[in-house]
């Protein structure tokens, strides 16, 4: 017990040093790579939300909608209400979460492919709404020339300097890293607390959960609100990096990718979406040279992964332990079948 805790802490420490010190040192000045890493981190934040909806047993292909809502909320708050980015970003997350509650409450009672199809259509609905609400969103032209995040001051003490006065690529990298760490620390705690047990009970059997007094409707909405919040934060971050937002900033394709990131990393592991996002997003960037064959190569890879690693990349680490457990379990199954046969005979 002690040992696993220490080794976990060591892994965590090394990961933090790599993310916060080594990677920026290697890639500083190489804008393309810094950009790719920053994007992958921001995508991981929104993917964490999708993972949580999977965790309560719902297939969520609508994360792009909530990222778009968050992105527009942030842009509008900065441009029209002249708010600081540091207030606009959390508000964008909250706004997405509120929309998530309003939409989630009626649709979360659906399951399986029905829920998935509705969420899929949400992304398209969000895009079309952004296009047609042109007085607020600027229509197809979008909102452009959004200023970089300004300084964050508390009691005259500058906590974060104005991004336009420093290396903004590095600044965004660090902002993404901090948000990523905060998101996954919060998720880890959530999943390992009793709330995580309640979410798992929903995933495994909603009827049984409600029969023991669990308010399943409320828990589902809570999970979906957290998911939408994370999408809103991710979307707001993107808009700040690109300094613009268009109806096409997040599309159906993005929603599908968020879902694939979770599949790839493993739906049973809270850090699965990070692994999935990084592997898939970085391999995308790597496969860019293949141009039109990129989706083909990439779909073959995905199919192969799902065939041989249905529990995601992170299940590789459990290989040996799992195998031992599985053979023990199947031995027991055989015993049970045996004794059943005897009982019947």
């Amino acid at each position, binding site marked *: 017990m002690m040992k696993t805790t220490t080794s976990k802490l060591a892994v965590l420490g090394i990961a933090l040093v790599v993310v916060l010190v080594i990677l920026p040192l290697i890639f500083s000045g190489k804008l393309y790579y810094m950009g790719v890493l920053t994007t992958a981190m921001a995508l991981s934040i929104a993917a964490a939300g999708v993972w949580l909806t999977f965790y309560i047993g719902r297939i969520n292909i609508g994360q792009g909608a909530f990222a778009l809502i968050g992105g527009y909320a942030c842009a509008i708050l900065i441009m029209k209400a002249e708010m600081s980015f540091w207030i606009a970003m959390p508000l964008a997350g909250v706004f997405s979460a509120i929309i998530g509650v309003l939409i989630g409450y009626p649709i979360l009672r659906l399951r399986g492919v029905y829920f998935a199809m509705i969420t899929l259509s949400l992304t398209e609905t969000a895009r079309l709404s952004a296009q047609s609400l042109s007085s607020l969103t600027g229509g197809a032209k979008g909102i452009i020339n959004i200023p970089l995040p300004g300084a964050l001051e508390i009691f005259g003490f500058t906590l974060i300097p104005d991004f336009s006065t420093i290396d903004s690529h590095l600044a965004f990298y660090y902002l993404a890293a901090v948000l990523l760490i905060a998101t996954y620390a919060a998720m880890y*705690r*959530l999943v390992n*607390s*009793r*709330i995580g*047990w*309640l979410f*798992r*009970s929903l995933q*495994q*059997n909603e*009827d*049984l959960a*409600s*029969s*023991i*007094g*669990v*308010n*399943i*409707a409320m828990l589902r909405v*809570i999970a979906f609100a957290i998911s939408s919040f994370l999408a809103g934060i991710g979307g707001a971050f993107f808009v700040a990096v690109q300094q613009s937002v268009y109806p096409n900033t997040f599309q159906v394709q993005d929603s599908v990718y968020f879902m694939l990131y979770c599949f790839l990393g493993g739906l049973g592991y809270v850090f699965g979406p990070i692994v999935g996002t990084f592997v898939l997003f970085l391999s995308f960037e790597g496969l860019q040279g293949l141009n039109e064959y990129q989706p083909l190569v990439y779909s073959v890879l995905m199919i192969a992964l799902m065939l041989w690693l249905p529990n995601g990349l992170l299940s590789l680490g459990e290989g040996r332990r799992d195998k031992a457990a599985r053979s023990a*379990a199947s031995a*027991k*199954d055989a015993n*049970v079948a045996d*004794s*059943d046969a005897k*009982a019947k005979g």
Partner: protein
Amino acid sequence: MSILEVRQLTKRFGGLAAVNEVSFNVEAGEILSIIGPNGAGKSTLFKLISSFLRATSGEVIYEGENIVSKAPHIVARKGVVRTFQETTIFKEMTALDNVVIAHHLRSRASLAGFYWASRTAKEDEAQFRESAEEILNYLGIGHVGNEIARNLPHGYLRALGMAIGLAAQPKLLLFDEPFAGMNHEETQQAVKQVYGIRDRGLTVLLVEHDMPAVMKISDRIVVLNFGQKIAEGTPTEIQDNEQVIEAYLGREDEEIGL
């Protein structure tokens, strides 16, 4: 004293009245069984009482309060808890964790408290674990507490279902066919467990097919046929009731001499 009063309870599916104006009382501390031939409306009645279905009309009065068509978790909170047939468990959790999670209604800490691991939350969790172990031991399955539930054999799953129901601290426990698919020995064991649950001060209502077990275990029996109550009484009264015999065996047909 009646703990539960079912009054004129009706459920229609389209033109079909699956349960038609059924009324009966459940007395505190008794074991009451609902029986009837296939399609008599037993399961529908069961789901109406536990609020897994909305009634078309009628009332279910529990401790003086109408609970009909409320959300299942609210009914559970008041003390009416149902169990399921054996496949309905949290399959990917250990048997012990199944019962720990079922202590949900006893939580004193809020969700936020559980998130931040407040002192109340820690006390709750320790207490749930202790109580879960006690319940598993009581039902004689304490030794498989750390097994993943889906690996457990049939009889153990049934007991686990009961354990989950008990953990929710009901006053009225509804059993959905607790003896279905069991051999004689397993049924004997399950009958003992149901008696044990009643001795813990609970009232038991069960829906069951297994006639010998029902006759043995019940204080009173309610018989349904085609959605209507055709008889109510002690096991001996039911055994001698002509309408019941007719419902199960069919009427004698004089013309063809059967």
